[in-house]
């Protein structure tokens, strides 16, 4: 079997968990990327997908806990995961720094997700070999 060249990927998710299939589809794709010997440069959550990074999401016990499942995948494979700051603040997903800045009573960003700007997305689209979007369907 011919050896394939390893590629780097940036994945952008725009659909929220429990509303769209986007986070699950992206996770299965990410697992396939790693299994095939390629690399994921970063995952970027935009729009409603920022809810994937909320540590407060509580799905019923017989449903997948997508935030924890994604978090474990990211930590296992050391994939940086960025949450768009503008999308996150509007939707109430805050890290400790933003909690203090906006004087809110709590923060809820699940590690290893980090909050940053769209510059991270631009960097990904420029530097990765492939950029893929996972949108909600409607």
């Amino acid at each position: 079997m011919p050896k394939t060249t390893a590629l780097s990927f940036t994945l952008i998710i725009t659909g929220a968990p429990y509303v769209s299939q986007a986070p699950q589809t992206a996770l299965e794709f990410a697992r396939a990327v790693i299994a095939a010997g390629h690399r994921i440069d970063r995952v970027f959550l935009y729009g409603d997908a920022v809810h994937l990074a909320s540590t407060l999401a509580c799905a019923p016990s017989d449903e997948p806990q997508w935030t924890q499942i994604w978090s474990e995948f990211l930590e296992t494979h050391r994939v940086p995961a960025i949450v768009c700051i503008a999308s996150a603040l509007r939707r109430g997903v805050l890290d400790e720094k933003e909690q203090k800045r906006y004087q809110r009573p709590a923060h809820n960003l699940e590690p290893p997700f980090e909050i940053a700007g769209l510059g991270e997305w631009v960097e990904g689209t420029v530097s990765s070999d492939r950029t893929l979007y996972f949108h909600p369907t409607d």
Partner: protein
Amino acid sequence: MTALVVIDRAPYGDWRGREAVDMGFSLAAFDQPVSFLFTGPGVNWLRMGQDATELSQKNLARQLGAAAIFGVEALLVDHKALAAYQLSVDTLSSPAQPVTVSPGLYGQYDHILCL
């Protein structure tokens, strides 16, 4: 890398268009060549005389007016969609270039973004 941001949804009904514009402006701010294409109901982003006051939203035509400041290369508008919404290229809120939407048009860009 050349990028095309496609706006194919009407303004004010949801936030996808606004968030797509933010992405396009970010590309331009980081010196990446980017153009916008308005097609389908998205051509209404360019409608003159928008007043979103009663919707408690920002005027999106005004937001789009900042495209040149950010360095967006071109605003393209689907001429068929313009006709369908009884708009004329001469009466748009921002100068836009009428185009025929085709695979050839999309093929001119490395990166296509449509939220």
